[in-house]
């Protein structure tokens, strides 16, 4: 047994924040929330405050010369987390503006202590601390006094067993926020990154003493519910994997096109991600739709993740009916500055809510059009995280990729995405007897044998219809086919 002190943690209900902090907020810690104006500092502070404050754990919010308190009350109320019942009893606001203007740091400190003693809060917020610091630069009080003030405030708040947050506008937190940086136990840095017209909000835990926090920048969005952070990490395998152990003979599931099941030697192994690659008009979406429809026939719910233009699916009556019946849910997005984290989060939510077993991603070629520009360069990374998450959810996935047909090349995807999938079906056009014929082949199925035939197929009202026998032509892929020599 260890005699070391145990640092208690407070679980904030800010989605994603506790994971970033390595479990939650350290109790009695002295923190700085830094960032440029408009980066979400005050909102984060309020969200933390309202999630933690209760009659036993009261919160005191000092407003200084930053945002006028009337406005802050007006706008913060718009968030769902703002609980009016807590104002007064569990949450108290105190304006320090006059004290700072008229007095010195010692006066401000005394005022803070008076209020703290009167209300006995467990959480203390000072917004914005930058204005306190500016007083030091402009006024009579020197930097040395400021340093003493911060040190003193930190010591007193910790002795009072209060978890403290200073909120300050700093464009470059690490360089500017000294001397607070030195004293602070935790530093939250919020920022907005613009590339072309898209803005992506990011949060970084620069420092969190005594806790193994997640480093690096993580995406967040601010909605009517407040901040939602999307930690940049893969899901735990133990949490999601429905079957444990190594699967030697996976269950096969029908794809909805019987001849393809045959070519796959009995259907698609459950949990696999199958890539369907082919040029425009080759029937990728038709195959995907059949895959979902077959799932519904088997009693399995489906999720469709669409990146095609939205009107396209309105013309697909089979799919429209599946969606209308509620058997297939759609995850789509109208925003053009999507981040992978948000997409994955939406997807996990829908798969869990509907208990879906099949997912169609149609199509990855358009995926990049929806991503915020800074993520477009790493489509492969994005697809990897998407497929990894889906694999851990235990669902079977069909992803489609549209690829221009370079007749003589045997390419399966852009950016090496094909390496990330478990199985590949390639569709392609070949000129045959004066017409454009369609050919299908199974390129790979991980851990399983499969047909190596190149078969001709047609798209009809019934879906994909594949010829029974392999074609008797050679050199199809070379662009110069010739009849196979029967001898």
């Amino acid at each position, binding site marked *: 047994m260890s005699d070391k002190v145990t640092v208690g943690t407070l679980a904030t209900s800010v989605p994603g924040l506790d994971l970033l902090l390595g479990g939650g907020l350290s109790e009695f810690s002295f923190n700085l929330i830094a960032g440029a104006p408009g980066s979400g500092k005050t909102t984060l502070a309020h969200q933390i405050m309202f999630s933690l404050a209760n009659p036993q754990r009261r919160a005191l919010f000092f407003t200084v010369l930053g945002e006028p308190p*009337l406005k802050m*009350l007006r706008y913060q*109320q718009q968030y769902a987390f703002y609980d009016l019942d807590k104002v007064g009893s569990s949450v108290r606001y*105190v304006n320090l503006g006059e004290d700072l203007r008229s007095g010195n740091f010692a006066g401000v400190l005394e005022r803070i202590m008076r209020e703290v003693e009167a209300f006995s809060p467990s959480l203390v917020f000072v917004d914005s601390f930058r204005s306190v610091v500016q007083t030091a630069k402009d006024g009579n009080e020197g930097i040395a006094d400021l340093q003493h003030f911060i040190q003193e405030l930190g010591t007193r708040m910790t002795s009072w067993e209060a978890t403290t947050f200073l909120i300050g506008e700093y464009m470059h937190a690490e360089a500017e926020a000294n001397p607070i940086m030195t004293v602070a136990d935790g530093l939250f840095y919020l920022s907005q990154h613009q590339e072309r017209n898209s803005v992506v909000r990011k949060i970084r835990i620069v420092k969190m003493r005594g806790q193994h926090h997640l480093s690096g920048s993580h995406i967040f969005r601010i909605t009517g519910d407040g901040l939602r952070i999307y930690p940049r990490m893969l899901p735990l395998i133990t949490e999601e994997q429905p079957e444990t152990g190594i699967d030697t003979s996976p269950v096969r599931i029908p794809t909805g096109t019987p001849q393809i099941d045959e070519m796959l030697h009995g259907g698609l192994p459950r949990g696999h991600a199958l890539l369907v690659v082919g040029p425009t008009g080759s029937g990728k979406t038709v195959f995907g739709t059949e895959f979902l429809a077959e799932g519904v026939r088997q009693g399995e719910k489906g999720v469709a993740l669409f990146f095609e233009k939205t009107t396209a699916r309105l013309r697909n009556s089979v799919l429209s009916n599946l969606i209308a019946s509620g058997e297939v849910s759609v995850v789509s997005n109208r925003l053009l500055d999507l981040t992978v984290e948000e997409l994955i989060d939406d997807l996990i939510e829908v798969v869990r809510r509907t208990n879906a077993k099949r997912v169609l991603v149609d199509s990855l070629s358009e995926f990049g059009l929806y991503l915020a520009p800074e993520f477009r360069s790493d489509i492969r990374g994005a697809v990897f995280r998407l497929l990894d998450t889906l694999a851990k959810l235990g669902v079977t996935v069909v992803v489609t990729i549209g690829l221009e047909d370079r007749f003589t090349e045997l390419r399966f995807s852009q950016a090496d995405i094909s390496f990330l999938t478990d199985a590949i079906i390639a569709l392609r056009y070949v000129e045959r007897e004066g017409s454009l014929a369609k050919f299908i082949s199974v390129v790979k199925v991980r851990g399983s044998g499969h047909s190596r035939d190149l078969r001709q197929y047609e798209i009809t009202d019934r879906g994909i219809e594949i010829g029974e026998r392999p074609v008797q032509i050679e050199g199809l892929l070379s662009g110069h086919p010739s009849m196979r020599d029967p001898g």
Partner: protein
Amino acid sequence: MDKNDNKRQQLISEMFSASRSNGGADVSAWRRLSMHLSPLIGESGFAALYGRAARLVQPRFPWLVLEQSSQSTDLFDQLGKQLSSVDADLAAETNAALLDTFTKLLSGLIGDALTIRLLNSAWSDESHQGNAKEQK
């Protein structure tokens, strides 16, 4: 909206009837409100809102002289003096109109729910304390 408006007006009238007022010139309601509200929105925030309320009711009560100060105590001293200088009924009417306008402005900014909460805590706490002292 109407319901909350009524609630707010009801609080104002209750406060008036509960206070052992020296007629309409009683500004204690303002002092109590200021004690609760100034820490929240700052002394200058309170004074600015009061200034706006006074300006809005002034056309109805032209004898009311508008004071400029960022200290609420100064403002209330002045208001008290001005109210004492007129007929008690008129003073009460003016005071009520000022409070109604002030709280309406506040409510427009921070919402009915929070305003009513603030009025409740400002006026009910103090009147209880007042009663307790009286019983001694």
